[in-house]
């Protein structure tokens, strides 16, 4: 404890010597882990862009390349399973680079004792999801670990996509006055998982929003919309995505709480558990930052796609407080929309 430290309170935990679950929660601790360990070790211009995937140029072709690992419990949930997540998650990361997803790899880490029937169901599900998203799973790997050393099944997928549009897409391109568009209601995937995991039963079951997002993104680009940044909403939800973009793009993002669609069952479940739907995970939603003049046309295009039928404009980019996300609440007061530290934890009372 340093000498000038007068507001001591109890001992500060300045650095955790071990990895905590919260380091994977999509919040600020995870950003610190990525910055301190991985960016330090692997530093290069593509990684520094801090986008969902890397965009690369080779032999005149514009490629997008990304990878993601899937560790969901339970393996099957309303609206999807680990296989649909593993395909759509990587497909969506490629789409957020403005690319047409083409090829995926799939690596399986299987815990000894997993029923063969489960693995077959997951594989079939991946096949169907890949067909729907227009991608092929062209290479793979299988490892089996001792019983107790895995949680049934972990899947890693990597993907390559082709970029037909050469414009830059990323937080660095976002400008003040840009419109912030959201592709649909938020919070369904996280609450679907949580309701199964915690045995919560609601009158109408909440189903995951898991879906491929390449079609609406490419429709925007094909129509010549000035798309400045795209981000699919996964862990940490809308709140984390907007905070990442505000921080990386050095802009203020201001949204209207009342404009963000949340379904009644998701709102109800979040109220009961004390969670904020804006920080709950999604698997089939994205935000698009587009030039202000293109906003109405972009919404029209998005709404013509079934997966984005409820797309709305939720806010605007401002220059005032770079790095900050602000929200006008339902009762008309502005406040900060902060990134959570780790995972959201249900409240005590």
């Amino acid at each position, binding site marked *: 404890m340093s000498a000038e430290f*007068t507001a001591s*309170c109890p001992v500060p935990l300045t650095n955790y010597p071990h990895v905590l679950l919260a380091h994977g929660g999509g919040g600020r601790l995870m950003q610190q882990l990525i910055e301190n360990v991985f960016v330090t070790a692997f530093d290069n211009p593509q990684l520094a862009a801090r986008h969902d995937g890397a965009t690369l140029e080779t032999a005149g072709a514009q490629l997008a390349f990304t990878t993601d690992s899937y560790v969901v419990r339970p393996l099957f949930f309303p609206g999807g399973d680990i296989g649909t997540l593993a395909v759509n998650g990587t497909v969506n990361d490629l789409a957020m680079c403005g690319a047409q997803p083409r090829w995926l790899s799939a690596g399986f880490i299987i815990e000894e004792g997993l029923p063969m029937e489960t693995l077959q169901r997951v594989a079939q599900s991946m096949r169907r999801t890949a067909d729907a998203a227009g991608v092929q799973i062209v290479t793979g790997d299988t490892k089996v670990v001792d019983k107790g050393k895995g949680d049934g099944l972990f899947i890693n997928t990597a993907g390559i996509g082709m970029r037909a549009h050469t414009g830059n897409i990323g937080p660095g391109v976002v400008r003040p006055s840009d419109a912030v568009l959201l592709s649909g209601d938020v919070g369904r995937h996280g609450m679907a998982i949580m309701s199964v995991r915690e045995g919560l039963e609601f009158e109408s079951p909440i189903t995951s929003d898991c879906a491929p997002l390449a079609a609406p993104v490419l429709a925007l680009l094909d129509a010549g919309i000035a798309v400045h940044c795209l981000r699919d909403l996964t862990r940490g939800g809308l709140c984390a995505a907007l905070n990442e973009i505000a921080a990386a793009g050095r802009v203020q993002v201001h949204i209207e709480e009342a404009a963000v669609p949340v379904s009644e069952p998701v709102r109800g479940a979040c109220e009961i558990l004390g969670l904020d739907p804006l920080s709950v995970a999604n698997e089939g939603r994205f935000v698009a930052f587009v030039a202000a003049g293109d906003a109405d046309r972009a919404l029209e295009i998005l709404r013509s796609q079934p997966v984005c039928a409820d797309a709305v404009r939720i806010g605007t980019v401002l220059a005032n407080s770079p790095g900050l996300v602000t929200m006008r609440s339902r009762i*008309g*007061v502005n406040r900060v929309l*902060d990134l959570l530290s780790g995972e959201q934890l249900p*409240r*005590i009372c």
Partner: protein
Amino acid sequence: MKFVDEYRDAARAQEFAEIIRRTVSRPWTIMEICGGQTHAIVKFGLDELLPRHVTLVHGPGCPVCVTPLELIDRAIALATHPGVTVCSFGDMLRVPGSRTDLLAVKARGGDVRIVYSPLDAVKLAHELPNRQVVFFAVGFETTAPANAMAVVQAQRAGLRNFSLLVAHVLVPPAMAAILSSPDNRVQGFLAAGHVCAVMGCREYEPLAAKYRVPIVVTGFEPLDILQGVQQCVEQLEAGRAEVVNPYARVVRPDGNPAAQQVLRTVFRVVPRKWRGIGEIPASGLGLREEFAEFDAEQRFGLAQLTAEESPECQSGLVLQGVKKPHECPAFGVRCTPEHPLGAPMVSSEGACAAYFRYRRPPPSQPRGEPANRPS
């Protein structure tokens, strides 16, 4: 959504704010007891709707924040024991003890589990007969009945591997401690609606009479809180000091007799240390002699493990409403949710966490947006 939207109505909120503005003639300081109310106030920006004459200060009603350091150290000591499974509500896991927190113990292999109900911990004790399952029982009168019920169920089932690490605290003694402090600035209270749902309103009447303060039983939605402030200000202006209950949709005057019954069966009133405040006589609950076998401190011989707060800690001033979170020099600089110096920055009900999460930097309107503070 029914039973939520009608209590968040923007137009009605402005109406209440207008009534408060018309009522107030001089400065008043009102404390909301519960951390849930603090978060609603800061999250919805309710204090920005109030006239400058009305100051809301934030009370000690965050169970995680007031749980004393030594009990957290005891929970951590239990969690490092290879035969013990420690269960608690999620919030408790990130609060630093003297050297570490429960999440870090979990990362090193300790069996620490988040549960949603103490009855889940009883179930776990059934499922893990070869392990000792300890539930870290924190909270005010709100959580105590369910924790008492867990002990009753464990006794009925003859469970020998279930125990409670009890850290329960009581609201009225804390209010008395705040009101009798020489630094006190609180002139009226918004009582914690959920605590009153269990205990009723009558135990606040002696406080209102002795200290001449109005006490308004208040809920957690924006309109509940504005109505609580309005009724409190009305009494202050009129020179009255009464206990009133506008939160009657949830709170009955006598509370929940069944919950009080199980609470009294299992627990007795004991002196309790409050983190950042110190020991307050008759301010906590401990297990009665008949249930001593379920007391983790006795079962594992933890009483000798003690820890003292630094005398310089400012979280006590925040918890007593003497200081606002951003008046602490460490706020947002050396003390953040990732590196909390005190529990109020950790808990989802802590006042410092509310200010950090919803109000950083201090409140400002984006340029071009209408200002919300009424003139």
